[in-house]
């Protein structure tokens, strides 16, 4: 939903760490994105090509690692992947699951030269 400010934030994080390491340029940026995160990687890439121009990160490739959503039922403690139209636990039918994974959205690493 907010790909421009998010792309700016990714650039800022990457440049900060690249500068600290005295990098000449950034080659790759590795981003982790949970399935439940609402951001769209295509749009981030689109903005990236514009805003990274004339920085250490110009031409850097963005790599997105998708993390599937995982819920854990708080009644039977079974872990499951949620589907679109049913939020109940598929094993015991209880409500009230905890999200174990799928909300991540962070810069994992950069490759620098």
């Amino acid at each position, binding site marked *: *939903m*907010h790909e421009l400010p*998010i792309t700016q*934030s*990714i650039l*800022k*994080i*990457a440049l900060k*760490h*690249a500068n600290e*390491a005295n*990098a000449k340029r950034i*080659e790759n940026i590795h*981003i982790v994105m949970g399935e*439940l995160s*609402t951001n769209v990687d295509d749009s981030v890439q689109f903005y990236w090509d514009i805003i990274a121009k004339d920085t250490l990160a110009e031409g850097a490739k963005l790599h997105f690692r998708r993390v599937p959503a995982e819920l854990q039922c*708080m009644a039977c403690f079974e872990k499951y992947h949620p589907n679109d*139209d049913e*939020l*109940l636990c598929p094993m015991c039918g209880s*409500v*009230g*699951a905890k*999200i174990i994974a799928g909300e991540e*959205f*962070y*810069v*994992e*690493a*950069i*490759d*620098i*030269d």
Partner: protein
Amino acid sequence: MTERISIVENILSANDRLAEENRARIDMAHVFSINLMASPGAGKTSLIEQTLPLLKDKMRIAVVDGDIATSLDADRAAAAGAQASIQVNTGGECHLDAVMLHGALNQLDLPQFDLLMVENVGNLVCPAEFRLGTHKSVLIASVPEGADKPYKYPGMYRGVDALIINKIDLLPYVNFDMDYFRRGVEALNPGVITFPLSCCTGEGMDAWINWLIENTKR
């Protein structure tokens, strides 16, 4: 030579840091604060309008209103008895973020107040992603919107501390399956405190008002 640097830094961390700063300021002033979120037309401003007269003799209340344009909502809050009402125009942004609330807090003499009500921009998607630093997130659902909203906007429903079901006076006239709605809510946010009410008739307002009073006393 390519070298890999491990980072693990949250992409929204700048907002989160500022949200923590906001929280510290609000805490220091001993103010209880809520972030009111809902789709457009669910009754955010109406709820504030109905809440203010019931509380204004008991506590001092500031309202921060987020909108893309106009100061209509802040004007309504001021007319209803808010001791201070600040309008934040987001200039096209579909949500308030911690920076915007930070700016609004600068305009308030916080220790003068007991309760801060922040009215977010009408939207069921984006406000859920941007923490402001308020104590409690409150979502207003309304009966005419339909009972499927928890299923369609899970990010919003699972993150809130209290849920208002507004416009219950319309239940006889619209097709709203309360059981289906509550099942969705319970699945996403088990045990969340719920206030079915009507800003129009005043039905159910007591429980909501008491919740605000109890939390403000703390």
